[in-house]
């Protein structure tokens, strides 16, 4: 244990303080404890089970519905399985985009207020720890759990696909899959940051969970609806002779709905997993005329989703920064 001894000069003291500031070392302690907590919690097992089962079922159904003759020859069989919907079952990507936010929300909604309500927060903060270490440790531990979960899910489902179709994936396919999984982690991290912010804003865990779910519904259901309504009001598109209006209607609708992270995620994951997607905006018939259908190289697909990825990462960081600032300034009452 280091106790400040009287230093000879003010400079020496300053340097000592700076060194100490760096080597608080408690981020790791808190990170480890949170990680252990998460991994041993029954919540984690329920979520993991849920996401695994739905993923595997939808993937299996997609495999069954894929026409046998199409396997292998057209390429990208593995990644295509992720976006293929069976007769009645939506594709894997749909399930993950639905359950991903739920996983993120479930992990963070009581991250801070749970400790406050149990009275452990003031005890924790009366130990020599920086507040940054507490919130960073909590966030990072949950992020790692999300990453582990997603990697396990991707590996399991992907392995199942390879095994059952018997088609070996190309390097690009694997890369696309990994990018898609990374994107999913970022998307879940967005909801995790949001739910942690809510766990700071609301003292009751139930309130913060409800707040998170409300926002999730808002983004995934109401924003697209709202986008359509606004676009229809600004650029009426009921007359097919007015092509310009119709075109702008679609553009506006898309741009509004892109305010929602779920739209960003869906578009990006679709582009990453379906190399035949060449553009995300509306295309006029004249533009498509004469185009040879083919696959976009990975670099081009990435270029297409780069704004989406940046947007999602930025949104996550902004929300986490808000939670961080709030936590640093928060009054800690027992």
């Amino acid at each position: 244990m280091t106790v400040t001894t009287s230093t000879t000069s003010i400079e020496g003291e300053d340097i000592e303080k700076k060194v100490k500031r760096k080597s608080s070392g408690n981020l790791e302690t808190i990170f480890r404890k949170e990680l252990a907590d998460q991994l041993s919690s029954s919540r984690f097992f329920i979520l993991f089970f849920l996401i695994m089962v739905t993923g595997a079922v939808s993937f299996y159904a997609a495999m069954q519905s894929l026409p046998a003759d199409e396997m292998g020859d057209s390429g990208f069989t593995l990644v295509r399985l992720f976006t293929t919907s069976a007769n009645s079952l939506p594709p894997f990507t749909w399930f993950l985009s639905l359950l991903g936010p739920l996983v993120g929300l479930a992990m963070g909604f009581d991250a801070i207020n749970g400790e406050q309500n149990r009275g452990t927060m003031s005890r924790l903060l009366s130990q020599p720890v920086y507040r940054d270490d507490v919130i960073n440790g909590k966030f990072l531990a949950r992020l790692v759990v999300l990453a582990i979960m997603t990697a396990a899910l991707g590996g399991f489902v992907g392995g199942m696909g390879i095994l059952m179709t018997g088609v070996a994936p190309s390097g690009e396919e694997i890369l696309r899959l990994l990018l898609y999984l990374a994107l999913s982690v970022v998307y879940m991290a967005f909801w995790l940051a949001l739910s942690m912010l809510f766990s700071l804003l609301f003292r009751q865990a139930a309130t913060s969970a409800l707040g998170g779910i409300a926002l999730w519904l808002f983004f995934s259901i109401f924003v697209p609806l709202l986008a359509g309504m606004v676009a229809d009001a600004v650029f009426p598109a009921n007359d097919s002779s007015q092509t310009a209006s119709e075109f702008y209607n679609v553009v506006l609708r898309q741009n509004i709905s892109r305010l929602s992270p779920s739209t960003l995620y869906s578009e990006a994951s679709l582009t990453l997993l379906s190399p035949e997607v060449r553009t995300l905006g509306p295309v006029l018939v004249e533009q498509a005329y004469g185009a040879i259908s083919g696959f976009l190289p990975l670099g081009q697909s990435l270029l297409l989703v780069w704004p989406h990825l940046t947007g999602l990462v930025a949104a996550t960081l902004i929300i986490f920064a808000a939670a961080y600032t709030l936590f640093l300034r928060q009054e800690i009452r027992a």
Partner: protein
Amino acid sequence: MGHDGIISMVDLTKKYGDITAVDQLNLTVNSGEIFGFLGPNGAGKTTTILMLMGLTEPTSGSLQVGGFDPMRDALDVKRIVGYMPDNIGFYDDMTGRENLRYTARLNHIAGQEAEVKIQNLLEKVGLAEAADRRVKEYSRGMRQRLGIADVLLKDPKIIILDEPTLGLDPEGAEELLDIIRDLGQKEGKTILISSHLLYQIQSICDRVGIFVKGKLIAEGKIKDLAAQLSDGGQVIEIRAEPVEQLADAVMSVAGVNFAERHGDTVIVKGDGENLAPRIVTELTARHMAVYHLNVRGYNLDDIYRQYFQGEEVK
């Protein structure tokens, strides 16, 4: 006050909006003493403690804990101060020992050293047998004792305990107080203990400070406090029959300058020698039956009643 105070506060003020939780507090706690913060709930005791720990920022004024400013060097303060919040919480799914282990790690006490220390502390607070049970199963008294062990783990110079006996049965409270008394007397720790249960902590405190509505209205050794608070007058409570005539009868005694009825008791304020015997003589002369008489103004009980229970004597 000398300058050797290990904790000192100068004009410390904390406002929450319009409400002043702590008002111009000036206080020094000396090294090695057990100091009691006394006061009713909401008097500003916890707020003061949170400011000492650097968990809450003062609105104005300055303070110093063990040579550090809690606002600037919060971490240094937290290294030398062990704080037990009121309603202390532990991670319920972890055992007592695991909870302590986490605290040890946060204080950079590692490996074997930590294990030995934890075992010793658990024995000290009488939890050695329950150490590997989940905290979920602990009684309130056990939690509080685990809290003491938790606080002692970092070998603090200063110990701050916020309402440590709250919610304990008398026996549990007594056990806890014994542990605290030993810490102060045998190990020479500086202990700051806050409570609204005056009776329980009065016996272990060297000095106390009395908080009412954010202000420190008195501080000092318990035996000096009464003199500090009373203006030389005495307060006497009397129960006698018939109660209707009691106040008038008492008022006729020389030296009595106030008498008021509260239910079947009359509170009398006055001064002069032998006031109580003279009142009794007067009442007996009037053939009234005296059932109860208590002279207040000499011990902390009376101060407690006077300030905490809002009974208006003046």
